């Protein structure tokens, strides 16, 4: 055992991965445990907005200032995850001038660059904005890929010696004399990366300290610790609806006080509409409802009218890990602060060995990680400084993208460009692939090299490969690539595992897709169903159902002793060249 303290971080979202990176960079021995895939919780279910802080500039200025600071940092350290689209706060005639001025003033007070644009100027940037808008404020909002960011943080932590365990839900906290001394996890398919059909095991992981970074799930961990005072996370669900294309290239916010359906974020090849905010009891089990999807389209069409007729490809819901200190008693969850809180359970509950971090938001994940890492380091008298604001994440190192990837890797240019955007400074390492490198996912332009690179860390879990590469996340929602992704697993994993992984990915895609079942996307879904059930017969596949087929009862071919092939004929006449 080294003399380094061992810290267990519970939660593989942005905060947990950020903490794992920060602590391991400071020389702490870290194990991160996550119940599902990285980003399984709220991180994987957000709209991908890199806040400028503008949204909080009126009501929550501390949060706003944190946002703009972190926004600048992430552009540096996570350049391959960020697209600086810029953002607009758009005022419609029915929105008040008073609030518009407050927003502008607030941005200035928080050092958020803000510029007023006339309706005409705004439409020059975004031609699809409604004709009757009044004006807009331009701010440095951006788009960020939460999956890529989270995976890069975890990869960096691993480079610094951390152990990352996904699909390892905490089933109990280890306590001794009222002190938390570790966690017990259930490795669903054994320790290490996930591989289907591996038997599950349990492991008790002892720790010098435990950090609870489970967001909306923090209360459940608190209960395991037997805290007298509940961790009152107030999960608020929100819907996000994904469009088939980027109707806008700039983040479009409605310039009015809090409200549902007030933002459109361009994200990769799509645009994401958001959102609602409804308090729920259980972060894992809440209704996903039609009216929420309809509300997104109908309300946001007031800002961008073409959304009304546009095609949506799926919807998903996320749960905000909102928290407010006891006795604040905010009745409307949309009024609960977006700030974060550090709960040292020794001070708060007289339970040593664990701190929870709750509240906050994705854009400030790094700052939250820094603060809790400072807190942990203080306990162990480690005076290493936080370096996460300065050291780029893997993939965001300085590099020149000027190489001609089309020539170098034999990939057509749009595909090479997309790959390079995703991989950043890892491009060379990944695309320099030995062997043919055909495209696996055409919608998102993902080649075999990227899939194989992902499988190395994702194991047989194709959903983990999906979030790393975006394969199967495009318009066809996996119709043309889920089977190809499964075929990429083969060799490394046997056929049964590849088929299990395929089925799992196919079902996961359907889960969000079914909220888009009308118009073109219903036709697309019918095609997908037809391809996978009729052409491939995967719904009745005798190898995966209980069916025992009596092959001898079926047609064995038109000619005796064979099935009508022409080899024997060809052998006798030597050179039959049929034509048709």
């Amino acid at each position, binding site marked *: 055992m080294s003399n380094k303290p061992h810290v267990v971080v519970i939660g593989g979202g942005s905060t947990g991965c950020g903490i794992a990176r920060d602590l391991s960079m400071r020389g702490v021995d870290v194990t991160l445990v996550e119940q599902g895939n990285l980003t399984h919780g709220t991180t994987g279910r957000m709209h991908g907005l890199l806040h400028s802080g503008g949204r909080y500039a009126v009501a929550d200025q501390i949060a706003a200032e944190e946002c703009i600071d972190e926004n600048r940092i992430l552009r540096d350290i996570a350049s391959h995850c960020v697209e600086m689209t810029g953002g607009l706060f758009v005022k419609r005639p029915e929105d008040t001038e008073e609030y518009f001025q407050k927003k502008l003033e607030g941005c200035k007070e928080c050092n958020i660059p803000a510029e007023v644009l006339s309706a005409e100027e705004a439409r020059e940037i975004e031609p699809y904005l409604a004709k009757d808008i009044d004006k807009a404020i331009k701010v440095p909002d951006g788009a960020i890929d939460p999956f890529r960011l989270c995976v890069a943080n975890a990869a960096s932590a691993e480079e610094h010696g951390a152990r990352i365990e996904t699909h390892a839900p905490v089933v109990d906290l280890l306590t001794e004399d009222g002190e938390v001394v570790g966690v017990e996890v259930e490795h669903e398919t054994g320790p290490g990366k996930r591989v289907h059909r591996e038997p599950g095991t349990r492991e008790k992981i002892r720790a010098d300290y435990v950090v609870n970074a489970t967001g909306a799930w923090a209360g459940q961990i608190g209960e395991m610790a037997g805290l007298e005072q509940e961790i009152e996370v107030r999960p608020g669900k929100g819907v996000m609806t994904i469009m088939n294309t980027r109707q806008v290239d700039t983040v479009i916010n409605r310039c009015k006080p809090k409200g549902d359906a007030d933002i459109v974020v361009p994200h990769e090849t799509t645009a994401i509409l958001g959102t609602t905010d409804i308090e729920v009891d259980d972060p894992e089990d809440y209704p996903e409802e039609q009216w929420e999807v309809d509300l997104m389209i109908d309300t946001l069409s007031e800002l961008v009218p073409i959304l009304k007729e546009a095609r949506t490809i799926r919807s998903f819901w996320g749960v905000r890990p909102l928290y407010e200190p006891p006795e604040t008693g905010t009745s409307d969850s949309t009024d609960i602060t977006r700030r974060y809180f550090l709960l040292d359970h020794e001070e708060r509950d007289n339970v040593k060995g664990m701190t929870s971090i709750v509240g906050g938001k994705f854009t400030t994940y790094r700052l939250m990680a820094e603060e809790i890492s400072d807190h942990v380091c203080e306990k162990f008298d480690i005076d290493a400084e936080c370096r996460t604001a300065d050291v780029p994440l893997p993939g965001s190192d300085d590099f020149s993208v000027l190489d001609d990837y089309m020539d170098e890797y034999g990939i057509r240019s749009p595909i090479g460009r997309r790959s390079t955007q995703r991989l950043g400074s890892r491009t060379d390492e990944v695309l320099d692939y030995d062997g043919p490198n055909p495209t696996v996912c055409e919608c998102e332009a993902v080649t075999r090299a990227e899939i194989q690179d992902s499988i190395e860390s994702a194991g047989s879990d194709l959903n983990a490969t999906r979030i790393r590469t975006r394969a199967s996340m495009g318009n066809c929602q996996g119709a043309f690539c889920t089977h190809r992704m499964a075929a990429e697993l083969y060799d490394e994993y046997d056929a049964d595992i590849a088929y299990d992984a395929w089925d799992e990915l196919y079902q996961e895609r359907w889960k969000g897709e079914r909220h888009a079942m009308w118009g073109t996307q219903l*036709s697309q879904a019918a095609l997908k169903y*037809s*391809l996978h059930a009729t052409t491939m*017969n995967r719904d009745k596949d005798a190898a995966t159902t209980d*069916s025992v087929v009596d092959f001898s009862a079926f047609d064995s071919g038109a000619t005796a002793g*064979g099935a009508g092939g022409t080899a024997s004929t060809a052998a006798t006449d030597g*050179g039959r060249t*049929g034509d048709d």
Partner: protein
Amino acid sequence: MAIREDVIVIGGGLAGSVAAIEAAETGASVRLVTYKKSTLRHASGLIDVLGYADGDDPVVDPFAELDDLPADHPYAIAGEAAVRDGLARFDEITGETYQGSHTDTNALIPTFSGAVKPTARYPAAAAAGIASDDRPMLVVGFEEMTEYNGEMLAAHLEAAGVPFDVEGVECNFPGEYVNDSRVTRFAKRLDIDETVDYEGRSMGAREALAAEVEPHVGDAERVGFPAFLGDDHAEAVRTDLERHLGVDVFEIPMGPPSYPGMRLEDTLKDAVDEAGVRISAGNPVVGFEADGGEIQSVTVDSKGREVPYHADEYVLATGGLVGKGIDSSREDGVEEPIFDCHIPHPEDRYEWFDEEAFGDQPFAHFGVVVDETMRPLDATDAPEFDNLRAAGAVVGGADTVAEKSQSGVSLATAVVAGEQAGKQAAKHEVSQ
């Protein structure tokens, strides 16, 4: 000049083509109006009649199951004779290019997913792959291709308990390629037998491919390839490979772009031509004129100009949700866009789908309701029009995807709709 025919068929897929031929056989003058490329290029080229009735066991004899189907099933409405007539017509059209007509029994054909599928007719190019044949098999995949892995496919066939030994192999497709070439590039290379460099020698692509595969043949008496063995010269490609390898060669049906589907499309087009059917391609039908319960003309959008096409009888064969013969929206529900024929569907769109991807999908049942002469019926079960019939996937009432019955339903409804349209058109002429 005004366009006037006895019968106008809208939609050029399997159902439209067969309905047009059927109508022409009655002596009627027929015009086939097609717009986009048909969905045949998405289809495997296998002609399924009924693969599953209830449960997971494949149906051995589809005809033995027809009596047990629900009364609103297209087969129950059209009747067994229509199913047989449809297949007979298909056999006549496709001749030697298809097999399976020697028996009522389904064949089990390996598809590119590795699952075997029950089907009634299969391309001659796929015949040697039949799963109820006990000869050892080699499945070939290519590293240049992503659709399947040969070894994984072989392992999956084994897992289904097939009665033959099966091996799989991943080969390299001879010749130089851009890294991300598509299957169409490989098909073309074989089709024209392009000269390639292989193992230091110049040779035809077919010979080179055989040389690449030959070391892996072993005890196999048949070798399966992805269904990209040529386009216009598919039979020659296969025969050449068989000659070089000395074993039977077959194609494994694939997804889009599906060469077996496109070849069938070509065969159908030739048959439509031969039957004397006129074809208007590339322009959509956007509306119609009716007088009471009779359609007088359909309106074709010819590059922005609306042209009326007149006929006595009309056949709607525009396809289902995939082919856009059925449309849907949040506001207006599920619709048949040309004649606004009634399509029963739940008002709540969250009742259009099942939560399980392979559950009982209500959307798969969407389509017009027809009477025994294939006339679409309105909500009160009265014909929408006296002289409109429907055929193919636009007809609802069964999940033809889960049943594996899409082609059979297309053929059965097409022969009834085509024949009825032709006969009724003849009566119009007598009465005029």
